[in-house]
């Protein structure tokens, strides 16, 4: 599997996951994504980057028709407004949803950065592969931004910081697919979070609207464990999530699930989401 194809798979899976819902589908034969109808409210745009170094990423995502596929993956979501999905040069490592024009942008720089900073083959503890790191980082970011999009589009009431809510949304959606996908996304997110420094020192170091990297990592692991203790037990066994936090994770997940069911599930076409859930978005390489 080439790097470009691997990235494409990650991006595709992100949207498949974002459209995933609470109820695990009944077993059925997987179908091609082309058989799933397009979401008629979603437009796409591949913006050509000015920086020559980003052209390979631009060409890879375009050749793979990622955004076209995403239109299919979003099919189950009833959007009250049009949504523009775009890939673009942003001159920063980022992805963002803009409620002003209802566009969600994945920056080429973010994809390139994930590729650059992922472990060469596997993390030092042998737990997280290169593929999982890249996959988890890109998908985690897309699920997070997809949360912002749904909060805006679906008028979801949010108490507390929206950035925390978007993280929780991402963790919850990641758990709706099979165990391997959920574990892979989490591994990647955990890897990059653990590589980044937390703030320290002055009060103002904690003034940001986001949680610290470690907080976001522990929150993600807690929801994973709370939603699927068996699959995520290994994260506790390996010391990634302290047992003191783990004992409350079931309640945290139940609370999140209730919020999701009340606010987002009414906008989901359930027969369509079951088809999306059954499609094979990832290759075995990407699930390592």
């Amino acid at each position, binding site marked *: 599997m080439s790097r470009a194809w691997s990235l494409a798979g990650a991006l595709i899976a992100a949207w498949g996951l974002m459209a995933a819902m609470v109820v695990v589908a009944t077993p059925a034969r997987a179908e091609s994504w082309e058989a799933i109808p397009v979401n008629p409210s979603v437009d796409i745009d591949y913006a050509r980057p000015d920086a020559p170094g980003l052209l390979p990423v631009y060409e890879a995502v375009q050749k793979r028709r990622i955004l076209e596929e995403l239109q299919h993956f979003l099919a189950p979501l009833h959007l009250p407004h049009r949504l523009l999905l775009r890939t673009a040069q942003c001159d920063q490592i980022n992805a963002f949803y803009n409620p002003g024009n209802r566009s969600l942008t994945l920056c080429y720089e973010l994809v390139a950065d994930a590729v650059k900073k992922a472990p060469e083959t596997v993390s030092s503890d042998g737990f997280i592969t290169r593929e999982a790191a890249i996959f988890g980082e890109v998908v985690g970011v897309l699920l997070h931004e997809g949360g912002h999009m749904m909060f805006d589009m679906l*008028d979801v009431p949010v108490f507390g910081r929206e950035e925390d809510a978007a993280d929780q949304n991402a963790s919850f959606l990641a758990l709706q697919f099979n165990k391997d996908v959920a574990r892979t996304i989490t591994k990647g997110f955990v890897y990059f979070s653990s590589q980044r420094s937390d703030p320290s020192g002055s009060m103002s170091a904690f003034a*940001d609207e986001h949680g610290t990297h470690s907080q976001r990592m*522990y929150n993600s692991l*807690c929801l994973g464990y709370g939603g699927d203790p068996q699959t995520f037990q290994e994260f506790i066994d390996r010391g990634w999530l302290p047992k003191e936090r783990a004992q409350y994770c079931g309640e945290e997940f139940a609370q999140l699930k209730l919020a999701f069911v009340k606010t987002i599930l009414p906008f989901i076409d359930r027969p369509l989401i079951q088809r999306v859930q059954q499609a094979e978005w990832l290759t075995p390489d990407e699930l390592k």
Partner: protein
Amino acid sequence: VTTIIGTAKFFEMTNHTWTGTDFASETSPEAQRFYNYLCVAYGGDPLTFRFLAPRPGPSALPRLTAHRAQRCPREFSQVQHAFDLRIMPFVDPDLVVKVRASQWLRPDEIGSQGDGK
């Protein structure tokens, strides 16, 4: 103002230095909670809480950063919207008017308003 500032001061006075697995706690660092409280207050009533606005100079209470302050009006609107959607349906509007008009604190319980600058 007394409630907001009192709560924020409580967070400010803690001397817990967060490191490592401290961040695994289900509660946020006191410094984060400090800014969350103040941001919602400033976003909801920038005139009353103008002493929190970012600007140089000494202050009795740490001010909001410029980065955070510009986001506070939206943070307040979002919480207000959520409250209106999910909680206000269970609230008696007539009684709310009475509650808001009541004097809940004694004069000696009402503290100074920030640095007053």
